[in-house]
């Protein structure tokens, strides 16, 4: 029996020193070439997104286990948060809800009026976007990208490209969807840009993330009418972000004499770095995005007549 063990040990150790299959160098070359081709395929084509989705779905139970201690910690903290604090919060929230209700009463009348006026002017009626409530389950794994993972995925009808907002403003955009989770790239990420306008004077521009919790608005001349403290809101011309959502406030404007462009730095209004609940706004349907069809065969007078008729019709209602 001892002899058997000895033989077993030898059988295990001999190959380690003498026969090891292909040399380490050739293996290295082979696997490096394989990784580089995978990288090229992943970066240029979308063939591998299915593989990734399947893997992430398979990994979901492990992820739940890995997230469990954090969840418990938060639950315990929630449980022990002082009674006084809760009472205060409750009071503040009730007050807020009351204020919002008063404002909402006005909103419904204003909205109805707006719809009515728009229909008079033959304009298209703005659509209320549908939304799904989600919660940030954890930060992205790479600390040098601005990505958070949200606990809603393709099982909850989330699609890549959806805008994500919190109670204060725009957080970012869904960039990758897995069955139970999805990745949201924050507006501060360098890869993300967002069409905006200055709330004060409706000046259109595009804001880019800078990778360090600020946004940059490049390609605007030095004499542009922007002041520190200006509020940037979404312009809505991309068809992804509904118009009028708060994005950022301008915090710094640098005039560089060497450059024809001003350097405009702004900080996001929404709690981009917070651990909060989020709203994932549904993408508008294709028909809704497409511009209203112009009617070239109608002569201007006819068009005006039509409009008058419509006004009459509305008046008679």
């Amino acid at each position, binding site marked *: 029996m001892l002899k058997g063990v000895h033989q077993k040990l030898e059988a295990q150790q001999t190959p380690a020193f003498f026969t090891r299959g292909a040399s380490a*160098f050739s*293996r290295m070359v082979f*696997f490096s070439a394989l990784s580089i081709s*995978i*990288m090229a395929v*992943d970066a240029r084509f979308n063939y591998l997104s299915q593989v990734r989705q399947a*893997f992430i779905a398979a*990994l979901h139970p492990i992820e739940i286990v*890995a997230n469990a201690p954090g969840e418990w910690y938060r639950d315990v903290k929630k449980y022990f948060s002082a009674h006084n604090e809760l009472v205060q919060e409750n009071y503040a929230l009730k007050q807020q809800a009351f204020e919002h209700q008063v404002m909402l009463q006005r909103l419904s009348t204003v909205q109805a009026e707006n719809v009515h006026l728009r229909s008079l002017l033959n304009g298209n009626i703005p659509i209320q976007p549908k939304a799904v409530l989600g919660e940030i389950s954890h930060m992205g794994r790479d600390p*040098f990208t601005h990505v958070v993972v949200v606990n809603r995925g393709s099982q909850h009808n989330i699609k890549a490209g959806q805008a994500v907002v919190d109670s204060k403003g725009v957080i970012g955009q869904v960039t990758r969807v897995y069955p139970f989770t999805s990745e949201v790239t924050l507006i501060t990420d360098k890869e993300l840009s967002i069409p905006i306008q200055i709330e004060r004077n409706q000046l259109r521009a595009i804001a880019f993330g800078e990778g360090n919790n600020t946004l940059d608005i490049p390609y605007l001349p030095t004499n542009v009418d922007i002041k520190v403290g200006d509020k940037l809101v979404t312009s809505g011309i991309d068809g992804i972000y509904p118009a009028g959502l708060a994005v950022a406030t301008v915090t710094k404007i640098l005039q560089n004499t060497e450059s024809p462009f001003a350097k405009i730095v702004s900080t996001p209004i929404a709690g981009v770095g917070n651990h909060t609940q989020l709203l994932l706004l549904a993408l508008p349907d294709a028909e809704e995005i497409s511009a209203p069809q112009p009617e070239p065969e109608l002569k201007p007078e006819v068009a005006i007549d039509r409009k008058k008729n419509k006004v009459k019709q509305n008046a008679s209602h």
Partner: protein
Amino acid sequence: MRHTSLITVYLTLLIALLCQLFPWVGQGIIFRPDFMLVILLYWLLRAPNLCNVGTAWLAGLLVDLATGSLLGQHALSFTITAFVALSYQRRLVLFNSWQLAGYVFALLIIERSVILLLKLFAGNESPSLAYFWPIVTGLLLWQFMILMFGGLTRPKTT
């Protein structure tokens, strides 16, 4: 040499992946050591008959899939690091623990540099010096592994 089975290797690598997936809060994520890489290096240097360049590639691919980074990025860096690690593996018996730690330090630097290079090629912003923290914490994890599971040079018979 203690008997290590293939199952031990893959089980520890799975645990390393779990540690990698653990939700690191706030600033902690900057200091997160590369669990997968350190565990992989440990087995590469200790049991090269169970674990080779191919294992490193597979581990790297798993990290890529799990972390959502560009697929093949960690696979490449782990492959190259594993090759360098293995090419001096036979001589490590002569190293004392400080020299070994220095060797592992160099390997961790190689891995981070390959990733940095790939990120720069992909057009990411050049990260701050904090990007290199995992090398230091990874070395600490290495020493911890040595303490827990024993060093590489263990006498065959007493």
